């Protein structure tokens, strides 16, 4: 995994923007309609999800040395 993905669930409204713009299909929505990591290994740390999250609920940090 190249990244650490942090989700602030209390902020997430489940709009799906992050899911849609993830080029590697890393993210999905849970039963409760909140973002969750479904395929973390594929994350390339592009942070497109973080960039357009209207609720500041998802953050991506590149792993050191990754």
């Amino acid at each position: 995994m190249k990244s650490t993905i942090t989700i602030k669930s209390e902020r997430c409204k489940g709009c799906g923007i992050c899911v849609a713009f993830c080029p590697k299909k890393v993210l999905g929505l849970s039963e409760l309609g909140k973002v969750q990591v479904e395929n973390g290994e594929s994350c390339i740390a592009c942070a497109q999800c973080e960039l357009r999250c209207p609720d500041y609920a998802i953050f991506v940090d590149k792993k050191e040395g990754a």
Partner: protein
Amino acid sequence: MEMAERSYEKFFRQHRLPHMWCPGCGNGIAMKAIVMAIEKHPELTADNTVIVSGIGCSSRASGYMDFDTLHTAHGRALPFATGIKMARPDLHVIVITGDGDCTAIGGNHFIHSCRRNIDLTAILFNNSIYGMTGGQTSPMTPMGKKATTTPYGSVARPLDPSALAKAAGATYVARSTAYHVHHLAKMIEQGLNNKGFSFIEAIVQCPTAYGRKNKMGTPADMLAWMRDNAVMKEAWDKLPEEKKQGEKFPIGVFLDSRYVDYATAYNDVIRAAGGEVK
């Protein structure tokens, strides 16, 4: 590994989040672009910057931002901001407004803020609709689009506030979208450079009141529409006229000029009257 807290978060009133905007609303993205732009200006601090807004979805932004903030009456953000700037020219004043707030009820204030070149940076969150009241047409609703008060589609041409701002005397005019977050932040950052009236239109998606009514899909679909139809100004200028049709629109800096701002110009009045310029 603990996530490093994003530095722009210090400009949010954490206890007020999550904000009240609908899932997928672009206002949150535009608000983040503003604090990202403020971060690029170390001279703007939480103590010397005032955020002023009108009424509408956009204008709720002020309550989430950890500065002195003023949520005024509908359309009146610019007059309040003008008073603040005249009283305290040392304060940085940022105005957050919407398409209805700025171009309908506040239209005259907008024209005259441009004309005076009062040193404010105004960011218009354009969601093409009155969202707070449930989806009525605004002066910026595109032709043919539906709203609860244009159930058969809008038949009036939308207003272009950038063209209006240029004509009325604003000295910095730019546009970007919620899709182009870094670009939007850059447009605002450059607006903050200008000591004069700066106007930035931020096109944002309203999935609830506008997108749904006009079958524009998910919030992500609406962002993708911005991606697919926005053309950088430099490329836009080279396009033949027939290619400028349809839904395509330019983004970028439309005007970046210099002219004395109103509060500075007023110092001449003070000197002529024999007063003391502070």
